[in-house]
């Protein structure tokens, strides 16, 4: 199991960050992703695997300031 934004979610073997975002239906164009408090650069989303038992935070960046 992994935790995504506080929710318990099934761990999928060899799943990348990009695939997880898709599975979670996080379709926002811009997000900040941290795995176990480590920032994952956007360019690495298709290569970075999600380890089992990890805690993932996804923040959706919305324009305005």
């Amino acid at each position: 199991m992994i935790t995504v934004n506080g929710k318990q979610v099934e761990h999928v073997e060899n799943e990348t960050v990009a695939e997880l975002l898709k599975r979670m239906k996080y379709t926002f164009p811009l997000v900040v992703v941290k795995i176990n408090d480590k920032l994952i650069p956007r360019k690495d989303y298709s290569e970075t695997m999600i380890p089992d038992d990890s805690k993932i935070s996804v923040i959706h960046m919305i324009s305005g300031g």
Partner: protein
Amino acid sequence: MVNKEKIREKLKNSSVGIAGLGGLGSNAAVSLARAGIGHLVLVDFDNIEHSNLDRQYYFLDQVGKPKTSAIRENLERINPSVDVMVFNKKLEKGSMSDPFKDVDVIIEALDNAEVKTGFIEEILLGLPGKPVVGASGVAGYGNSDRINTKRMGNLYMVYDEHARSSDEDVLMAPRVTLIANWQANIALEILLGENK
């Protein structure tokens, strides 16, 4: 009882960097100056437009001026003891963290989602350990109770995930200043820590 003298002293010796001097940045800077922060490092490249006055801490007679020089004037009129360093320039990919190397806390006060994301990424990767206070979901009015702080290690996000983007919704003083002050308040919390 808090030790007020200790708090004053701690803040006087603290520095906050603010990226962007629009609705979030100008209001956060003013609140931190009022609170007695010792040093501010402020970065923006824009000039003040009439349309900014609905939420940004500038005045009618400052329209057309660079935000960096106008905010310096305004801060001077509120608390001249703050040491204000300004950079009138656009934050460019690859060197976004440069002005903020020596500050204690960074406030992300940019407007465009793409730039916000790039900035946070550069700071977290380029200045590991540096606390960053960002904001996402500023536009609109009402729904104050949807706003919350999401902490992920050194990254603190003032966040309303249900807000619309500023392309689809209004930006107005009450909500923007609320979030700007929320960010400033987190900065104080980080700076003062256990010295509360």
